[in-house]
């Protein structure tokens, strides 16, 4: 069973629909027992990182997430709050990934949010198994995780290179939305589910 962590942080529907299209059984939950007994855990997130962290703390899930030993996938803000800290609301985050989340500074060349399909490169071999660099995935974000030793995919927006995906032990995260990235995104989700 796959657990999608429900911590009142935006829309979970697109992740649910993506798992259904892949024929997976999943449960939406905030129950630590269910989360810790799941074979895979997904931490989605839309909206504001500081609010997401506050919701997660209120639900008592920060230490629960840290103690998961099965593969975990954070998506978008779900991934950002697995980093050290975020400039969005200047919040401390869970601290699994050795990355800081910073704001894109808007310029005429740098539209913010970074919205649309962008190519990813420098791909690690597990989450991106059998995938070539240069494929496009869908991004929507105004804050980005910096490059660090946990970076397993990169992307460039208006000259700024950032971590498109991160990995630390059993924890994975994507800044892009695999659930909205067409066939490429489905392949990435399949790879995660096969870990």
């Amino acid at each position, binding site marked *: 069973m796959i657990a999608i962590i429900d911590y009142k942080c935006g829309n979970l529907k697109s992740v649910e629909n993506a798992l259904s299209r892949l024929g997976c059984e999943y449960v939406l939950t905030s129950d630590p027992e269910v989360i810790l007994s799941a074979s895979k855990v997904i931490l989605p997130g839309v909206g504001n990182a500081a609010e997401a962290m506050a919701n997660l703390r209120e639900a008592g899930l920060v230490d629960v997430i840290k103690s998961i030993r099965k593969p975990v996938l954070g998506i978008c803000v779900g991934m950002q709050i697995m980093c050290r800290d975020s400039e969005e609301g200047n919040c401390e985050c869970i601290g699994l990934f050795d990355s800081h989340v910073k704001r894109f500074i808007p310029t005429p060349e740098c539209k913010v949010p970074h919205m649309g*399909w962008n*190519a990813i490169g420098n791909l690690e071999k597990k989450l991106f198994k059998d995938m070539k660099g240069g494929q496009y995935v*869908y991004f*929507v974000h105004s804050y980005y995780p910096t490059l660090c030793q946990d970076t397993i995919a990169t992307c460039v927006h208006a000259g700024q290179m950032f971590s498109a995906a991160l990995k630390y032990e059993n924890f994975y995260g994507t800044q892009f939305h695999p659930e909205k990235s067409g066939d490429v995104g*489905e392949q990435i989700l399949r790879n995660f589910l096969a870990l």
Partner: protein
Amino acid sequence: MVAKRIIPCLDVKDGQVVKGINFLGLKEVGDAVEMGKRYSLEGADELVYLDISATREGRKTFAALVERIAEVINIPFTVGGGISTLDDASRLLDAGADKISVNSAAIKDPSLIERVAAKYGSQFIVTAIDARMIDGKWMATTHGGSVPTDRELFSWAKEAQDRGAGEILFTSMDHDGTKAGYPCETYAALCDSLSIPVIASGGAGNVGHIADVLTLGKADAALAASIFHYGEISIPDLKGQLRSQGIEVRL
């Protein structure tokens, strides 16, 4: 670099995609879910579904349709048409829409943009502006271009951005349906004046028009309906030709 997006627009009435010229005279062109799926397989980067039903029944049919679209389509899609309250937005979010677009309701009550953005984030709200040149100025209009407002395009787009809109979808009602191309200088000036992405809509008749608005017009995305619905240009052909002209697109 983020790729320029190609976005087919589907006007929906009672579950069917329809196409009219300048909003007058409608013709059914296909099933909304099937057409969306086909465009997505052909390489569309996003889809826009606009509800043009005028009745309550039609609105209900549309919400149910949005759920089916969300189940089937694996790329982002925007829904618009008749969204005038935060509740309308919430219902469409719950049904699985990735973004909503607001038009007349935001002109009537600009705080709608702020309220939706505060609750669901800027990425969820597109502000659509239908403008036409009136006495030398681009003025926003409602009701398919027939009712002018006192909102000027550039200041209204900037205000929408400042209130939290994540994108501007600008349609020139002077060009929509003409297939004679986009007003590229206006698009370029609009894009330069904003820090959020701009989607160009209305006027595409050939690949050259789309290439122009994405380069000279600096638009981040091009939205079109009839050229795709009637198979005048296929999405793979369009994207292939754009790529060969050095425009970054997702292939």
